[in-house]
Protein backbone atom coordinates (compact mmCIF):
# COMPACT_ATOMS: atom_id res chain seq x y z
CA UNK A 1 0.00 0.00 0.00
CA UNK A 2 1.35 3.44 -0.92
CA UNK A 3 1.05 6.49 1.29
CA UNK A 4 -1.42 7.97 -1.22
CA UNK A 5 -3.60 4.87 -1.09
CA UNK A 6 -3.51 5.00 2.70
CA UNK A 7 -4.34 8.71 2.67
CA UNK A 8 -7.40 8.00 0.53
CA UNK A 9 -8.56 5.42 3.08
CA UNK A 10 -7.95 7.78 6.00
CA UNK A 11 -9.79 10.62 4.24
CA UNK A 12 -12.77 8.40 3.48
CA UNK A 13 -12.90 7.16 7.08
CA UNK A 14 -12.77 10.72 8.46
CA UNK A 15 -15.53 11.81 6.09
CA UNK A 16 -17.65 8.90 7.24
CA UNK A 17 -17.07 9.53 10.96
CA UNK A 18 -17.75 13.27 10.58
CA UNK A 19 -20.62 12.54 8.19
CA UNK A 20 -19.28 14.99 5.61
CA UNK A 21 -17.72 14.65 2.15
CA UNK A 22 -14.04 13.93 1.66
CA UNK A 23 -13.40 16.89 -0.64
CA UNK A 24 -12.32 19.29 2.08
CA UNK A 25 -9.87 16.78 3.57
CA UNK A 26 -6.34 16.46 2.25
CA UNK A 27 -3.01 15.14 3.49
CA UNK A 28 -2.26 18.41 5.28
CA UNK A 29 -5.54 18.49 7.18
CA UNK A 30 -4.55 18.71 10.85
CA UNK A 31 -5.98 16.11 13.25
CA UNK A 32 -4.86 17.59 16.55
CA UNK A 33 -4.44 21.16 17.74
CA UNK A 34 -6.25 24.45 17.32
CA UNK A 35 -6.60 24.11 13.55
CA UNK A 36 -8.15 20.64 13.70
CA UNK A 37 -11.76 20.26 12.61
CA UNK A 38 -12.02 16.96 14.46
CA UNK A 39 -12.07 16.53 18.24
CA UNK A 40 -10.05 13.91 20.08
CA UNK A 41 -12.94 11.52 20.69
CA UNK A 42 -13.89 11.64 16.98
CA UNK A 43 -10.27 10.92 16.20
CA UNK A 44 -10.55 7.83 18.42
CA UNK A 45 -13.49 6.74 16.26
CA UNK A 46 -11.43 7.33 13.14
CA UNK A 47 -8.64 5.13 14.51
CA UNK A 48 -11.11 2.40 15.49
CA UNK A 49 -12.60 2.53 11.98
CA UNK A 50 -9.06 2.25 10.58
CA UNK A 51 -8.56 -0.83 12.80
CA UNK A 52 -11.65 -2.37 11.20
CA UNK A 53 -10.46 -1.40 7.71
CA UNK A 54 -7.04 -2.90 8.39
CA UNK A 55 -8.65 -6.13 9.54
CA UNK A 56 -10.52 -6.32 6.22
CA UNK A 57 -7.21 -5.75 4.43
CA UNK A 58 -5.53 -8.49 6.44
CA UNK A 59 -3.29 -6.63 8.88
CA UNK A 60 -3.51 -5.18 12.35
CA UNK A 61 -3.47 -1.41 12.73
CA UNK A 62 -1.76 -0.54 15.99
CA UNK A 63 -2.25 3.05 17.14
CA UNK A 64 -2.29 2.51 20.91
CA UNK A 65 0.88 0.65 21.86
CA UNK A 66 3.86 2.41 23.32
CA UNK A 67 6.05 0.91 20.62
CA UNK A 68 4.04 2.54 17.83
CA UNK A 69 3.80 5.86 19.63
CA UNK A 70 7.50 6.02 20.37
CA UNK A 71 8.27 5.31 16.71
CA UNK A 72 5.97 8.04 15.49
CA UNK A 73 5.08 10.57 18.14
CA UNK A 74 3.49 12.80 15.56
CA UNK A 75 1.26 10.25 13.87
CA UNK A 76 -1.84 12.22 14.80
CA UNK A 77 -0.45 15.53 13.52
CA UNK A 78 -2.11 15.36 10.11
CA UNK A 79 -4.00 13.09 7.74
CA UNK A 80 -0.74 12.49 5.86
CA UNK A 81 1.15 11.49 9.04
CA UNK A 82 -1.57 9.05 10.07
CA UNK A 83 -1.73 7.64 6.53
CA UNK A 84 2.02 7.09 6.53
CA UNK A 85 1.84 4.94 9.68
CA UNK A 86 -1.17 3.08 8.28
CA UNK A 87 0.69 2.35 5.03
CA UNK A 88 3.82 1.26 6.87
CA UNK A 89 1.90 -1.19 9.06
CA UNK A 90 0.15 -2.52 5.94
CA UNK A 91 3.57 -3.49 4.69
CA UNK A 92 4.12 -0.62 2.26
CA UNK A 93 4.67 3.06 2.81
CA UNK A 94 6.50 4.34 -0.18
Amino acid sequence: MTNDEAAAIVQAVIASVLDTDANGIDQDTPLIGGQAQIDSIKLVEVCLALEDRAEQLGFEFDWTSEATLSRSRSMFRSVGALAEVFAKQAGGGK
Partner: protein
Amino acid sequence: MSAASEGLLERLARIWEGVDHPFLIHPAGNLTFADILGQPPVDLTSVHRGDVVALIGDFDARSVHTLLRLFDLGAIVVPLTAATRAQHDYFLETALVDTVIDAAGVHRRENRHLRPRTHPLLEELRNDETAGLILFSTGTTGQPKAILHDLDHFIRRFDRPNPGLRALSFLLFDHIGGLNTLLQALFNRRVIVAPSGRTVDAVLDDCRRHGVEALPATPTFLRMLLLSGAVPQGVPETIRLITYSTERMDQPTLDALCALLPDVEFRQTFGMSELGIMRVASKARDSLFFNLGGRGVETRTVDNVLWIRTPARMRGYLNAPSPFDSEGWYNTGDIVVERDGFYKVTGRADDVINVGGLKFMAAEVEQAALALDAVLFAKAVGRDNPLTGQHVELLVQPVPGANLDTAELKAQLQQRLPAHMMPRRLRIDAVPVSHRYKLV
Protein backbone atom coordinates in the same frame (compact mmCIF):
# COMPACT_ATOMS: atom_id res chain seq x y z
CA MET B 1 -20.43 -34.50 75.66
CA SER B 2 -19.48 -31.02 74.45
CA ALA B 3 -19.71 -30.18 70.78
CA ALA B 4 -16.01 -29.36 70.68
CA SER B 5 -14.79 -32.80 71.66
CA GLU B 6 -17.36 -34.62 69.59
CA GLY B 7 -16.48 -35.54 66.00
CA LEU B 8 -18.46 -34.06 63.16
CA LEU B 9 -19.81 -37.40 62.01
CA GLU B 10 -20.89 -38.25 65.54
CA ARG B 11 -22.48 -34.87 66.04
CA LEU B 12 -24.41 -35.07 62.77
CA ALA B 13 -25.51 -38.64 63.49
CA ARG B 14 -27.03 -37.35 66.72
CA ILE B 15 -28.80 -34.50 64.86
CA TRP B 16 -30.27 -36.93 62.31
CA GLU B 17 -31.21 -39.65 64.77
CA GLY B 18 -34.75 -40.82 64.08
CA VAL B 19 -35.11 -38.52 61.05
CA ASP B 20 -35.64 -40.33 57.81
CA HIS B 21 -36.27 -37.55 55.27
CA PRO B 22 -33.48 -36.97 52.76
CA PHE B 23 -31.20 -33.96 53.06
CA LEU B 24 -30.63 -34.02 49.32
CA ILE B 25 -33.24 -34.43 46.60
CA HIS B 26 -31.30 -35.20 43.46
CA PRO B 27 -32.31 -36.24 39.93
CA ALA B 28 -29.93 -39.21 40.30
CA GLY B 29 -31.53 -40.31 43.58
CA ASN B 30 -32.20 -38.88 47.02
CA LEU B 31 -29.70 -39.01 49.85
CA THR B 32 -30.46 -39.48 53.55
CA PHE B 33 -28.00 -39.17 56.38
CA ALA B 34 -28.47 -42.90 56.98
CA ASP B 35 -27.09 -43.43 53.45
CA ILE B 36 -23.98 -41.52 54.49
CA LEU B 37 -23.53 -43.53 57.68
CA GLY B 38 -24.19 -46.76 55.81
CA GLN B 39 -21.32 -46.23 53.40
CA PRO B 40 -18.54 -48.82 53.40
CA PRO B 41 -15.73 -46.63 54.74
CA VAL B 42 -12.82 -45.72 52.48
CA ASP B 43 -9.56 -46.99 54.01
CA LEU B 44 -8.01 -43.89 55.57
CA THR B 45 -5.36 -45.67 57.68
CA SER B 46 -2.58 -43.98 55.72
CA VAL B 47 -4.01 -40.48 56.37
CA HIS B 48 -2.75 -38.59 59.40
CA ARG B 49 -3.60 -35.33 61.14
CA GLY B 50 -2.24 -32.38 59.16
CA ASP B 51 -1.95 -34.30 55.87
CA VAL B 52 -3.17 -32.49 52.78
CA VAL B 53 -5.74 -34.72 51.09
CA ALA B 54 -7.37 -34.04 47.72
CA LEU B 55 -10.83 -35.56 47.58
CA ILE B 56 -12.12 -35.82 44.03
CA GLY B 57 -15.84 -36.29 44.42
CA ASP B 58 -19.26 -34.74 44.43
CA PHE B 59 -22.42 -34.61 46.49
CA ASP B 60 -22.68 -38.41 46.69
CA ALA B 61 -22.79 -40.58 49.81
CA ARG B 62 -19.21 -41.81 49.53
CA SER B 63 -17.70 -38.37 49.00
CA VAL B 64 -19.70 -36.71 51.78
CA HIS B 65 -18.88 -39.57 54.18
CA THR B 66 -15.19 -39.36 53.34
CA LEU B 67 -15.16 -35.56 53.61
CA LEU B 68 -16.61 -35.66 57.13
CA ARG B 69 -14.19 -38.40 58.20
CA LEU B 70 -11.22 -36.45 56.83
CA PHE B 71 -12.29 -33.42 58.83
CA ASP B 72 -12.58 -35.59 61.94
CA LEU B 73 -9.07 -36.92 61.30
CA GLY B 74 -7.73 -33.34 61.25
CA ALA B 75 -6.73 -33.47 57.60
CA ILE B 76 -6.43 -30.43 55.35
CA VAL B 77 -8.92 -31.25 52.62
CA VAL B 78 -8.81 -30.09 49.00
CA PRO B 79 -12.27 -30.87 47.57
CA LEU B 80 -12.13 -31.23 43.78
CA THR B 81 -14.55 -32.38 41.11
CA ALA B 82 -14.03 -34.26 37.88
CA ALA B 83 -15.14 -31.12 36.01
CA THR B 84 -11.78 -29.44 36.71
CA ARG B 85 -9.69 -32.52 35.87
CA ALA B 86 -7.56 -30.58 33.38
CA GLN B 87 -6.31 -28.41 36.24
CA HIS B 88 -5.81 -31.16 38.83
CA ASP B 89 -2.06 -31.44 38.36
CA TYR B 90 -1.71 -27.75 39.07
CA PHE B 91 -4.04 -27.99 42.07
CA LEU B 92 -2.21 -30.99 43.59
CA GLU B 93 1.17 -29.32 43.17
CA THR B 94 0.07 -25.95 44.50
CA ALA B 95 -1.76 -27.35 47.53
CA LEU B 96 1.22 -29.64 48.31
CA VAL B 97 -1.15 -32.61 48.38
CA ASP B 98 0.07 -35.75 50.17
CA THR B 99 -2.80 -38.07 49.31
CA VAL B 100 -5.42 -38.21 46.57
CA ILE B 101 -8.75 -39.96 47.06
CA ASP B 102 -10.84 -40.61 43.96
CA ALA B 103 -13.37 -43.20 42.83
CA ALA B 104 -10.57 -45.74 42.41
CA GLY B 105 -9.24 -45.43 45.96
CA VAL B 106 -6.59 -43.78 48.11
CA HIS B 107 -3.26 -42.87 46.50
CA ARG B 108 -0.28 -41.56 48.38
CA ARG B 109 1.70 -39.17 46.15
CA GLU B 110 5.11 -40.86 46.21
CA ASN B 111 7.01 -38.19 44.32
CA ARG B 112 6.41 -35.80 47.16
CA HIS B 113 8.94 -37.65 49.30
CA LEU B 114 11.63 -36.92 46.73
CA ARG B 115 11.05 -33.20 47.04
CA PRO B 116 9.75 -32.59 50.52
CA ARG B 117 8.12 -29.18 50.55
CA THR B 118 5.79 -27.40 52.85
CA HIS B 119 4.30 -23.97 53.34
CA PRO B 120 4.39 -21.76 56.45
CA LEU B 121 0.59 -21.45 56.45
CA LEU B 122 0.17 -25.24 56.39
CA GLU B 123 2.67 -25.55 59.23
CA GLU B 124 0.77 -22.92 61.19
CA LEU B 125 -2.46 -24.88 60.78
CA ARG B 126 -0.73 -28.12 61.82
CA ASN B 127 0.67 -26.45 64.92
CA ASP B 128 -2.82 -25.30 65.82
CA GLU B 129 -4.00 -28.90 65.39
CA THR B 130 -7.04 -27.88 63.39
CA ALA B 131 -8.39 -29.40 60.21
CA GLY B 132 -8.30 -27.24 57.09
CA LEU B 133 -9.87 -26.62 53.76
CA ILE B 134 -8.14 -25.55 50.56
CA LEU B 135 -10.31 -24.08 47.80
CA PHE B 136 -9.24 -22.71 44.45
CA SER B 137 -10.42 -19.35 43.20
CA THR B 138 -11.82 -19.17 39.70
CA GLY B 139 -10.51 -15.79 38.70
CA THR B 140 -10.51 -14.95 35.04
CA THR B 141 -6.96 -13.64 35.10
CA GLY B 142 -3.87 -15.52 36.19
CA GLN B 143 -3.63 -18.89 37.87
CA PRO B 144 -6.33 -19.96 40.33
CA LYS B 145 -5.35 -19.04 43.88
CA ALA B 146 -5.16 -21.68 46.61
CA ILE B 147 -7.26 -20.38 49.51
CA LEU B 148 -6.52 -21.96 52.90
CA HIS B 149 -9.25 -21.92 55.54
CA ASP B 150 -9.21 -23.09 59.11
CA LEU B 151 -12.03 -25.61 59.44
CA ASP B 152 -12.88 -24.63 63.03
CA HIS B 153 -13.81 -21.15 61.86
CA PHE B 154 -15.83 -22.55 59.01
CA ILE B 155 -17.76 -24.95 61.23
CA ARG B 156 -18.27 -22.62 64.20
CA ARG B 157 -21.21 -20.87 62.60
CA PHE B 158 -23.20 -24.09 62.69
CA ASP B 159 -23.14 -24.22 66.50
CA ARG B 160 -26.35 -22.22 66.54
CA PRO B 161 -29.35 -24.00 65.01
CA ASN B 162 -30.76 -22.31 61.93
CA PRO B 163 -33.72 -24.21 60.47
CA GLY B 164 -33.99 -22.27 57.19
CA LEU B 165 -35.87 -22.94 53.99
CA ARG B 166 -35.96 -25.77 51.48
CA ALA B 167 -33.56 -24.44 48.87
CA LEU B 168 -32.50 -25.21 45.36
CA SER B 169 -28.74 -25.61 45.09
CA PHE B 170 -26.27 -26.26 42.33
CA LEU B 171 -24.06 -28.17 44.76
CA LEU B 172 -20.54 -27.13 43.99
CA PHE B 173 -18.40 -29.61 45.87
CA ASP B 174 -15.25 -27.57 45.34
CA HIS B 175 -16.71 -24.21 46.28
CA ILE B 176 -17.14 -22.52 49.66
CA GLY B 177 -20.81 -21.76 48.94
CA GLY B 178 -21.50 -25.36 48.00
CA LEU B 179 -19.83 -26.75 51.13
CA ASN B 180 -21.63 -24.19 53.25
CA THR B 181 -24.95 -25.29 51.76
CA LEU B 182 -24.13 -28.94 52.46
CA LEU B 183 -23.11 -28.32 56.07
CA GLN B 184 -26.07 -25.99 56.70
CA ALA B 185 -28.38 -28.75 55.53
CA LEU B 186 -26.63 -31.43 57.59
CA PHE B 187 -26.44 -29.38 60.78
CA ASN B 188 -30.00 -28.09 60.54
CA ARG B 189 -31.85 -31.04 59.01
CA ARG B 190 -32.62 -28.94 55.97
CA VAL B 191 -33.50 -30.26 52.54
CA ILE B 192 -31.61 -29.14 49.48
CA VAL B 193 -32.92 -29.78 45.99
CA ALA B 194 -30.49 -30.30 43.13
CA PRO B 195 -32.00 -29.01 39.89
CA SER B 196 -32.23 -31.23 36.84
CA GLY B 197 -31.25 -28.41 34.47
CA ARG B 198 -30.34 -24.75 34.31
CA THR B 199 -33.02 -23.41 31.99
CA VAL B 200 -35.88 -21.30 33.35
CA ASP B 201 -38.36 -24.10 32.63
CA ALA B 202 -36.27 -26.81 34.30
CA VAL B 203 -35.62 -24.73 37.40
CA LEU B 204 -39.27 -23.70 37.82
CA ASP B 205 -40.38 -27.27 37.25
CA ASP B 206 -38.01 -28.61 39.93
CA CYS B 207 -39.17 -25.90 42.34
CA ARG B 208 -42.79 -26.88 41.75
CA ARG B 209 -42.24 -30.63 42.06
CA HIS B 210 -40.18 -30.45 45.23
CA GLY B 211 -41.83 -27.53 47.00
CA VAL B 212 -38.71 -25.35 46.89
CA GLU B 213 -38.96 -22.29 49.13
CA ALA B 214 -35.67 -20.51 48.42
CA LEU B 215 -34.29 -19.96 44.94
CA PRO B 216 -30.72 -18.70 44.60
CA ALA B 217 -30.29 -17.01 41.25
CA THR B 218 -28.18 -14.58 39.31
CA PRO B 219 -29.40 -11.33 37.76
CA THR B 220 -28.89 -12.98 34.36
CA PHE B 221 -31.25 -15.82 35.26
CA LEU B 222 -33.80 -13.39 36.67
CA ARG B 223 -33.73 -11.32 33.49
CA MET B 224 -34.31 -14.52 31.49
CA LEU B 225 -37.12 -15.42 33.89
CA LEU B 226 -38.85 -12.07 33.23
CA LEU B 227 -38.40 -12.43 29.48
CA SER B 228 -39.76 -15.97 29.48
CA GLY B 229 -43.18 -14.67 30.45
CA ALA B 230 -43.28 -17.17 33.32
CA VAL B 231 -43.68 -14.41 35.92
CA PRO B 232 -45.88 -14.44 37.84
CA GLN B 233 -48.09 -17.42 36.82
CA GLY B 234 -45.25 -19.89 36.25
CA VAL B 235 -43.52 -19.19 39.57
CA PRO B 236 -44.60 -21.79 42.14
CA GLU B 237 -46.38 -20.46 45.22
CA THR B 238 -43.99 -22.32 47.48
CA ILE B 239 -41.20 -19.88 46.62
CA ARG B 240 -40.82 -17.37 49.44
CA LEU B 241 -37.30 -16.13 48.87
CA ILE B 242 -35.21 -15.35 45.80
CA THR B 243 -31.58 -14.43 46.31
CA TYR B 244 -29.33 -12.92 43.71
CA SER B 245 -25.61 -12.47 43.57
CA THR B 246 -22.33 -12.63 41.66
CA GLU B 247 -23.17 -9.94 39.12
CA ARG B 248 -24.65 -6.53 39.67
CA MET B 249 -28.41 -6.52 39.69
CA ASP B 250 -30.10 -3.64 37.91
CA GLN B 251 -32.91 -1.73 39.57
CA PRO B 252 -35.46 -2.05 36.69
CA THR B 253 -35.22 -5.87 36.81
CA LEU B 254 -35.56 -5.90 40.60
CA ASP B 255 -38.49 -3.45 40.46
CA ALA B 256 -40.28 -5.55 37.85
CA LEU B 257 -39.81 -8.74 39.89
CA CYS B 258 -40.95 -7.09 43.12
CA ALA B 259 -44.09 -5.78 41.42
CA LEU B 260 -44.95 -9.10 39.78
CA LEU B 261 -44.15 -11.29 42.79
CA PRO B 262 -45.45 -9.31 45.77
CA ASP B 263 -45.27 -12.25 48.20
CA VAL B 264 -41.67 -13.16 47.47
CA GLU B 265 -38.78 -11.78 49.51
CA PHE B 266 -35.76 -10.66 47.47
CA ARG B 267 -32.35 -10.65 49.06
CA GLN B 268 -28.88 -9.88 47.83
CA THR B 269 -26.01 -12.17 48.70
CA PHE B 270 -22.41 -11.12 48.84
CA GLY B 271 -19.39 -13.21 49.50
CA MET B 272 -15.93 -14.21 48.51
CA SER B 273 -14.04 -17.38 49.23
CA GLU B 274 -11.26 -15.43 50.93
CA LEU B 275 -13.59 -14.11 53.64
CA GLY B 276 -15.61 -17.19 54.53
CA ILE B 277 -19.36 -16.93 54.83
CA MET B 278 -20.98 -13.64 55.90
CA ARG B 279 -24.56 -12.77 56.71
CA VAL B 280 -26.11 -10.34 54.24
CA ALA B 281 -29.27 -8.31 54.81
CA SER B 282 -30.96 -6.27 52.10
CA LYS B 283 -32.34 -2.93 53.28
CA ALA B 284 -35.67 -3.75 51.65
CA ARG B 285 -36.89 -6.33 49.17
CA ASP B 286 -36.74 -3.79 46.33
CA SER B 287 -33.47 -2.22 47.43
CA LEU B 288 -29.98 -2.87 46.14
CA PHE B 289 -28.58 -1.62 49.46
CA PHE B 290 -27.37 -4.30 51.88
CA ASN B 291 -25.30 -4.64 55.00
CA LEU B 292 -22.99 -7.34 56.21
CA GLY B 293 -23.22 -9.07 59.53
CA GLY B 294 -22.18 -12.22 61.29
CA ARG B 295 -19.85 -12.82 64.17
CA GLY B 296 -17.15 -10.13 64.30
CA VAL B 297 -17.67 -8.87 60.73
CA GLU B 298 -16.58 -5.24 60.28
CA THR B 299 -16.88 -3.01 57.21
CA ARG B 300 -15.51 0.36 56.16
CA THR B 301 -14.96 2.30 52.95
CA VAL B 302 -11.72 3.80 51.68
CA ASP B 303 -12.16 6.09 48.64
CA ASN B 304 -15.61 4.53 48.08
CA VAL B 305 -14.14 1.02 47.97
CA LEU B 306 -15.55 -1.52 50.43
CA TRP B 307 -13.11 -3.11 52.90
CA ILE B 308 -14.08 -6.01 55.16
CA ARG B 309 -12.50 -7.58 58.24
CA THR B 310 -13.82 -10.85 59.57
CA PRO B 311 -12.46 -13.49 61.94
CA ALA B 312 -13.66 -16.14 59.46
CA ARG B 313 -11.20 -14.93 56.82
CA MET B 314 -8.85 -17.42 55.23
CA ARG B 315 -5.39 -18.06 56.67
CA GLY B 316 -3.97 -16.96 53.32
CA TYR B 317 -3.12 -18.01 49.79
CA LEU B 318 -0.60 -20.81 49.25
CA ASN B 319 0.51 -19.36 45.91
CA ALA B 320 0.10 -15.59 46.24
CA PRO B 321 0.93 -12.83 48.72
CA SER B 322 -1.57 -12.09 51.47
CA PRO B 323 -4.36 -9.78 50.29
CA PHE B 324 -4.95 -8.52 53.86
CA ASP B 325 -3.41 -5.36 55.24
CA SER B 326 -1.45 -5.45 58.51
CA GLU B 327 -4.68 -5.12 60.51
CA GLY B 328 -6.45 -7.90 58.66
CA TRP B 329 -8.65 -5.76 56.39
CA TYR B 330 -9.50 -7.01 52.90
CA ASN B 331 -10.00 -4.70 49.94
CA THR B 332 -13.00 -6.13 48.07
CA GLY B 333 -12.35 -3.95 45.02
CA ASP B 334 -16.08 -3.17 45.00
CA ILE B 335 -17.01 0.49 44.63
CA VAL B 336 -19.97 1.24 46.87
CA VAL B 337 -22.35 4.02 47.78
CA GLU B 338 -23.08 4.12 51.51
CA ARG B 339 -26.41 5.18 53.01
CA ASP B 340 -27.42 4.71 56.66
CA GLY B 341 -24.91 1.94 57.16
CA PHE B 342 -26.05 0.09 54.04
CA TYR B 343 -23.96 -0.32 50.91
CA LYS B 344 -24.83 -0.53 47.25
CA VAL B 345 -22.22 -1.87 44.86
CA THR B 346 -21.94 0.37 41.83
CA GLY B 347 -18.98 -1.26 40.17
CA ARG B 348 -15.53 -2.68 40.53
CA ALA B 349 -12.56 -0.47 41.29
CA ASP B 350 -10.98 -1.80 38.12
CA ASP B 351 -14.18 -1.08 36.16
CA VAL B 352 -13.75 2.68 36.41
CA ILE B 353 -13.41 4.17 32.95
CA ASN B 354 -11.66 7.50 32.51
CA VAL B 355 -12.30 9.32 29.24
CA GLY B 356 -10.39 12.57 29.01
CA GLY B 357 -10.45 12.93 32.80
CA LEU B 358 -14.18 12.19 33.14
CA LYS B 359 -14.69 9.08 35.27
CA PHE B 360 -17.66 6.73 35.24
CA MET B 361 -18.41 3.04 35.77
CA ALA B 362 -18.56 0.47 32.98
CA ALA B 363 -21.84 -0.60 34.61
CA GLU B 364 -23.45 2.76 33.88
CA VAL B 365 -22.96 2.19 30.17
CA GLU B 366 -24.19 -1.41 30.50
CA GLN B 367 -27.31 -0.23 32.34
CA ALA B 368 -28.10 2.24 29.56
CA ALA B 369 -27.88 -0.60 27.03
CA LEU B 370 -29.86 -3.00 29.22
CA ALA B 371 -32.66 -0.44 29.48
CA LEU B 372 -33.35 -0.95 25.76
CA ASP B 373 -36.02 -3.57 25.07
CA ALA B 374 -33.97 -5.35 22.40
CA VAL B 375 -30.92 -5.86 24.65
CA LEU B 376 -30.47 -9.02 26.72
CA PHE B 377 -26.86 -8.71 27.93
CA ALA B 378 -24.29 -5.93 27.70
CA LYS B 379 -20.60 -5.77 28.52
CA ALA B 380 -18.76 -2.46 28.47
CA VAL B 381 -15.01 -2.12 28.78
CA GLY B 382 -12.66 0.83 28.91
CA ARG B 383 -9.81 0.54 26.45
CA ASP B 384 -6.65 2.59 26.66
CA ASN B 385 -5.78 4.94 23.84
CA PRO B 386 -3.22 7.73 23.48
CA LEU B 387 -5.79 10.40 22.59
CA THR B 388 -8.41 10.43 25.35
CA GLY B 389 -6.76 8.10 27.86
CA GLN B 390 -9.57 5.58 27.47
CA HIS B 391 -12.71 5.08 25.44
CA VAL B 392 -15.68 2.74 25.82
CA GLU B 393 -16.24 -0.36 23.74
CA LEU B 394 -19.56 -2.15 24.12
CA LEU B 395 -20.63 -5.68 23.31
CA VAL B 396 -24.35 -6.30 23.23
CA GLN B 397 -26.35 -9.50 22.95
CA PRO B 398 -29.89 -8.93 21.66
CA VAL B 399 -33.02 -10.56 23.01
CA PRO B 400 -33.73 -13.68 20.88
CA GLY B 401 -35.74 -12.67 17.84
CA ALA B 402 -35.04 -8.93 18.19
CA ASN B 403 -33.80 -6.95 15.21
CA LEU B 404 -30.94 -4.77 16.33
CA ASP B 405 -28.21 -3.20 14.24
CA THR B 406 -25.31 -1.07 15.40
CA ALA B 407 -26.65 2.12 13.80
CA GLU B 408 -29.94 1.86 15.65
CA LEU B 409 -28.19 0.86 18.88
CA LYS B 410 -25.91 3.87 18.57
CA ALA B 411 -28.83 6.21 17.95
CA GLN B 412 -30.67 4.91 21.00
CA LEU B 413 -27.63 5.08 23.26
CA GLN B 414 -26.91 8.63 22.14
CA GLN B 415 -30.22 9.66 23.67
CA ARG B 416 -29.27 8.12 27.01
CA LEU B 417 -25.55 8.73 27.43
CA PRO B 418 -23.38 11.84 27.59
CA ALA B 419 -20.79 12.03 24.82
CA HIS B 420 -17.82 10.87 26.91
CA MET B 421 -19.70 7.70 27.95
CA MET B 422 -20.80 6.80 24.42
CA PRO B 423 -19.23 3.56 23.19
CA ARG B 424 -16.88 4.34 20.34
CA ARG B 425 -17.08 0.76 19.12
CA LEU B 426 -20.27 -1.27 19.19
CA ARG B 427 -20.45 -4.98 18.56
CA ILE B 428 -23.54 -7.16 18.47
CA ASP B 429 -22.71 -10.72 19.41
CA ALA B 430 -23.07 -13.28 22.21
CA VAL B 431 -21.81 -11.91 25.54
CA PRO B 432 -19.55 -14.53 27.12
CA VAL B 433 -20.55 -15.50 30.64
CA SER B 434 -18.01 -17.12 32.93
CA HIS B 435 -19.05 -20.70 33.46
CA ARG B 436 -19.32 -21.34 37.12
CA TYR B 437 -20.60 -18.49 39.19
CA LYS B 438 -23.30 -17.63 36.70
CA LEU B 439 -25.30 -20.60 37.82
CA VAL B 440 -28.84 -19.84 36.90
